[in-house]
């Protein structure tokens, strides 16, 4: 059985692929920023004194971690639509991704916060520091520095799962590929072509996180060792 590969026809569509990759990046950026913020708040709440809040966060995290992203995105998008709220597909994808990644972030950050020794907090209290200051300067900063590799790994995974948003027709890279293959009938070539594009996006993402890490964690930059 012979198959003649024809990648040339795809060349005409490069602006579409580029636009798709751009949407993927936008989705990733928004989900990273908001997911990180909400995940951090959840991590703090989960360790806090309010039992009901910690419990509610625990339930949220378990639900997200134990159901597929595809089901989450369908539930949100089609569910809200049936209730009369038609979200733009881009917005729906961002919301679903934020909810998803925030749950994982909160678990990772919580694990990091658990590594902060109680003596650190006592020392900060003894210096008269307020609770918000202690959380930010003494608990969160070293915690996030410690779990930074796990966090960034999670964000790369999330960029890859943004391909699932194609199933509600968000025009990101995979959805573009779907369209292109329906015009060209070159399905295999199309998907073979976007695989390296995702690899490039993943590399770009890892590079950015590395750069951010250098900037955010001077200790690591100077000593080159993990905290």
């Amino acid at each position: 059985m012979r198959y003649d590969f024809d990648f040339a026809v795809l060349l005409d569509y490069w602006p579409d692929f580029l636009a798709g990759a751009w949407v993927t990046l936008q989705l990733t950026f928004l989900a990273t920023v908001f997911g990180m913020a909400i995940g951090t708040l959840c991590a703090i709440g989960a360790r806090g004194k309010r039992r009901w809040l910690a419990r509610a966060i625990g339930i949220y995290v378990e639900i997200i971690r134990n159901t597929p992203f595809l089901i989450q995105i369908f539930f949100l998008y089609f569910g809200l639509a049936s209730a009369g709220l038609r979200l733009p597909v881009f917005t729906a994808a961002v919301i679903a991704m934020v909810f998803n990644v925030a749950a994982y972030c909160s678990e990772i950050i919580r694990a990091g916060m658990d590594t902060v020794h109680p003596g650190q907090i006592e020392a900060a209290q003894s210096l008269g520091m307020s609770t918000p200051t202690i959380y930010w300067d003494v608990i969160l900063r070293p915690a996030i520095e410690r779990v930074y590799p796990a966090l960034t790994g999670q964000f790369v995974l999330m960029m890859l799962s943004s391909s699932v948003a194609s199933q509600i027709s968000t025009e990101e890279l995979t959805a573009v590929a779907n369209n292109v293959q329906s015009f060209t009938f070159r399905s295999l070539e199309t998907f073979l072509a976007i695989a390296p594009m995702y690899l490039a996006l993943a590399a770009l993402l890892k590079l950015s996180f590395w750069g951010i890490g250098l900037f955010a964690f001077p200790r690591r930059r100077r000593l080159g060792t993990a905290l």
Partner: protein
Amino acid sequence: MDIVFNWSYFGYLLYGAMWTLVLSACAFVLGGAAGFLVMLARTAQSRLIRQIALVYVEIIQGTPLLVLLFIAYFGLGVFGIEVPPLVAAAISLMINASAFLGEIWKGCVEAVPRTQREAAECLALTRWQAFVDVILPQAARIATPPTVGFMVQMLKNTSLASVVGFVELTRAAQVINNSTIQPFLVFGIAGTMYFVLCYPLTAWSRSLERTLNVGRR
């Protein structure tokens, strides 16, 4: 006339859930076997083999599973064989799992103290004997919690098979929703079924981890 969700639909969801389990089992067995090979290659003595394995892992871990699935689906299709979606899904899940499990297990093998291998080699065991009889049993203990954790990941990943038309739980829910238009209910029930399947594994993985940590102290 409105079509409303009823017990026969629930039965259809259960039928889908069964295929989700079948696909997960296939993915785990195939992916586990392939992942073992990846782990061997990642810890091989030959630098070349290690590098090739690393490139493989980087490529697979940097490609969305959905794209892998399409490549498997259309790729097998071009050979003129009518590919059942189950086969395409199982193959793509296997490839995905091989990279992730291989990497997890490589970490576990390397977590076994060097001195263990040295001690075994001092007893004149061959490299392979030392690996099988000394390293592997210890690595397996460390590897169990993350492996069970990844099984949850795989189970959830099978939902993507719905995209190529394989009727598992997510596809079944989509089909029902198309006629009843009760997405909160239908996807809610499907989500609950996934939760029921995944949560015990999650809890198990967590308790294994706890026992392991206590044992290490």
